[in-house]
C-alpha cells in the first residue's frame, strides 16, 4: 500500500504543513512496510523533504501552474497517484489543500476522510480518528475503497525528522484547458504580518479591550512573540478589527500551539473555533468567564494592568533566550 503525499509549497518554498504531512506519512509507511512518494508543484529545491523520510519526489514544474488552481492541481495529484499506483493519498488542511482534496477523491473514486487526527486506529480494516462536531467529539471512520484519501488536521501530528535517501524525478502530467475553468484575477495578502493560518502563536482579544484604540498593546504582545493577532466575533462585528481576524465557528479556525485570549469571555461558538489549539491561556477580569473552563493557564486580572507587564516579561525572556 504505497503512500503519496502532496507537499505544498508557496513561492518555491515548502510550507510547514508539508513537513508535518511527510512526518506523518513516514510513520504510517513504516507500519505498512512501504515507502513515501511526494508530488510537488513548482517547489524549487526539494531536497529538504529527505529530512522527513520522503523516499521519492515527483517534481512538477510548469508555468501554467504558477498560480494555485484547485482543479489543475487535483489533476496533477490524481495522475501522480496513478503513476505510482499509490493506495493511500495524504493531504494537509490548508485552505488550498482542503479545496482540492474532494476533487482528488472523486477523480480517484476514493473514500475520503478529512480532519484526521493521529495515526490510523487500524489499517485492516482501515480506520482513522477524525475531529467532528466542531472539536466536541471524535469520529472513527472506516474507509473501504481500494484507494484512500486522508486530510490531516493542521498541527495535529507534529514534525519529526527521519533521514532518508531521496530519489528525484521530473514528472510531466497532462494538464488540459478544462482544468482552468476558474481563473485567478488578483490576490490580496496582508504583508508583513504573520497570518492566523501559519502562526505558531495567536494573540486574540475581545470586547474586554473596550475599544479599537486599545489594540496597540495586543499588537505589541503579538510582535514580541512572533504571533498573529485575532479577535472575537463581537469585536469584528463592531468594526473594531477587520473581519479577517475573526476566529471562531463562523470565522477562521485556529489550530495553533499557543492561543492567548485576552478579554474574551469564551462563548461556545468562539471555543468551537479555537479548541484545536494545543495550549490556551486566558486573561480575564471575570473569574466566572467560561473561557477558564477550557483554558490550560489563566490569569484573573485586568488586561490593561496585566498585558503591558506581560509584554515586558516576554521581552526579557526573549532577550535571555537569544
Amino acid at each position, binding site marked *: 500500500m504505497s503512500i503519496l503525499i502532496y507537499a505544498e509549497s508557496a513561492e518555491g518554498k515548502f510550507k510547514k504543513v508539508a513537513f508535518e504531512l511527510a512526518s506523518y506519512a513516514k510513520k504510517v509507511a513504516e507500519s505498512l512496510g512501504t515507502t513515501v512518494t511526494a508530488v510537488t508543484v513548482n517547489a524549487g529545491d526539494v531536497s529538504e523533504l529527505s529530512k522527513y523520510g520522503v523516499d521519492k519526489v515527483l517534481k512538477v514544474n510548469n508555468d501554467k501552474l504558477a498560480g*494555485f488552481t484547485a482543479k489543475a492541481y487535483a489533476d496533477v495529484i490524481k495522475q501522480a497517484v496513478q503513476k505510482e499506483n499509490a493506495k493511500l493519498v495524504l493531504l494537509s488542511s*490548508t*485552505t488550498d489543500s482542503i*479545496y482540492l*482534496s*474532494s*476533487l482528488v477523491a*472523486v477523480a480517484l473514486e476514493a*473514500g*475520503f476522510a*478529512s*480532519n484526521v487526527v493521529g495515526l490510523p486506529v487500524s489499517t485492516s480494516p482501515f480506520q482513522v480518528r477524525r*475531529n*467532528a*462536531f466542531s*472539536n466536541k*467529539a*471524535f*469520529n472513527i*471512520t*472506516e*474507509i*473501504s*475503497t481500494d484507494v484512500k484519501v486522508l486530510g490531516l488536521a493542521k498541527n495535529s501530528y507534529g514534525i519529526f525528522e527521519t533521514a532518508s535517501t531521496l530519489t528525484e524525478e521530473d514528472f510531466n502530467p497532462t494538464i488540459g484547458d*478544462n482544468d482552468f*475553468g*476558474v*481563473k*485567478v484575477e488578483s*490576490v*490580496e*495578502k496582508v504583508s508583513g504580518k504573520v*497570518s492566523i*493560518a*501559519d502562526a*505558531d*502563536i495567536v494573540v486574540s482579544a475581545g470586547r474586554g479591550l473596550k475599544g479599537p484604540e486599545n489594540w496597540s498593546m495586543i499588537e505589541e504582545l503579538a510582535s514580541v512573540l512572533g504571533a498573529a493577532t485575532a479577535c472575537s*466575533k463581537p469585536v469584528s*462585528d463592531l468594526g473594531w478589527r477587520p*473581519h479577517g481576524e475573526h476566529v471562531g*465557528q*463562523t*470565522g477562521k479556525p485556529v489550530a495553533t*500551539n*499557543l492561543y492567548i485570549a485576552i478579554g474574551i469571555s469564551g462563548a*461556545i461558538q468562539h471555543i468551537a473555533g479555537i479548541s484545536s489549539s*494545543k*495550549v490556551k*491561556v486566558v486573561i480575564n477580569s471575570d473569574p466566572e468567564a467560561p473561557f*477558564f*473552563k*477550557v*483554558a*490550560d*493557564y*489563566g*490569569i484573573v486580572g485586568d488586561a490593561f494592568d496585566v498585558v503591558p*507587564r*506581560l509584554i515586558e*516579561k516576554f521581552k526579557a525572556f526573549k532577550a535571555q533566550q537569544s
Partner: protein
Amino acid sequence: MKILVCISHVPDTTSKINFTNGDSEFDTNGVQYVINPNDEFGLTRAIWFQEQQGATVTVANVGGPETEPTLRKALAIGANEAIRVNANPTDGFFVAKQLAEVIKNGGYDLIIAGKESLDYNGGMVPGMIAGILGYNFVNSCTGITVEGTAVKAVREIDGGKETVSTTLPLVIGGQKGLVEEKDLRIPNMRGIMTARTKVLTIVEPVEAPANTKAVKFEKPAAKSAVKLISPDNLDELINLLHNEAKVI
C-alpha cells in the same frame, strides 16, 4: 438563473453532544436543529439574487422526514421550493451523489453549499458535487456576483483573499462573507405562513457506493482544571509556558 442551495440539518452549537447505541450514533435526544450556519450565509445570498436579479431559489437536503422543519425554515426565509432526498446521509460522497442527481434533473446554474457542516465537519460535499458533475468550483467563497453566465467570486486564502473569474454552471463552498451576520434573514410571520403552502418535493435516493462509514464516536478526555496564576506572578506564566507546556 436557477440556484440550488444545499441545506444541512445540524445540531445547534449549544447542543450537548452525546452518543448512543454503543457510541455508534449521535444522540438526537433533546437536540435543537438549525440550518448549518455556512449554508445560511449562502441561502441569504441566494435570496439576494432572487430579489435583485430574478433568480429562483430551490433548497435541498438529504435526510429523513425529521429534517423537514429545517427545509420549511429555509422556505420561510424566502426560498421558492424545497427538495428532500429521502435517505440517511451516510457519508459525504453519498450526499454529494444525491445532490448531483437533483442538480442534473433540475438544471441548476449555481449551486451553493456551505464549505463545511457543523456536525461531521467533512467539508467535502461542495467539491464532490463539482467533481461528479465536472462543474466549476470555488471553495471558501466569501463573495459572488453573476452577470449572464460570467461570475466573479472572492475566495478566502491563508493570509488574505483571492478574486477569481469563472462561469456558470458553478458550485461554491460558501461561508461568512457571502453576506454578513447582521444581514442574515430571520423568517417573519408572512414568510412562515407562505412556507406552509410552498412545494416540498420528496425524491428517492439513487444508488451510491458506501466509500466510508462512521463506525464509532468518542468524546475527548475530560480536561484538567485551569492552572490559575496570580497577576502579580507573571514570571510563573512564562516559566510554565516554557518548561511545562514547551510552547515558547
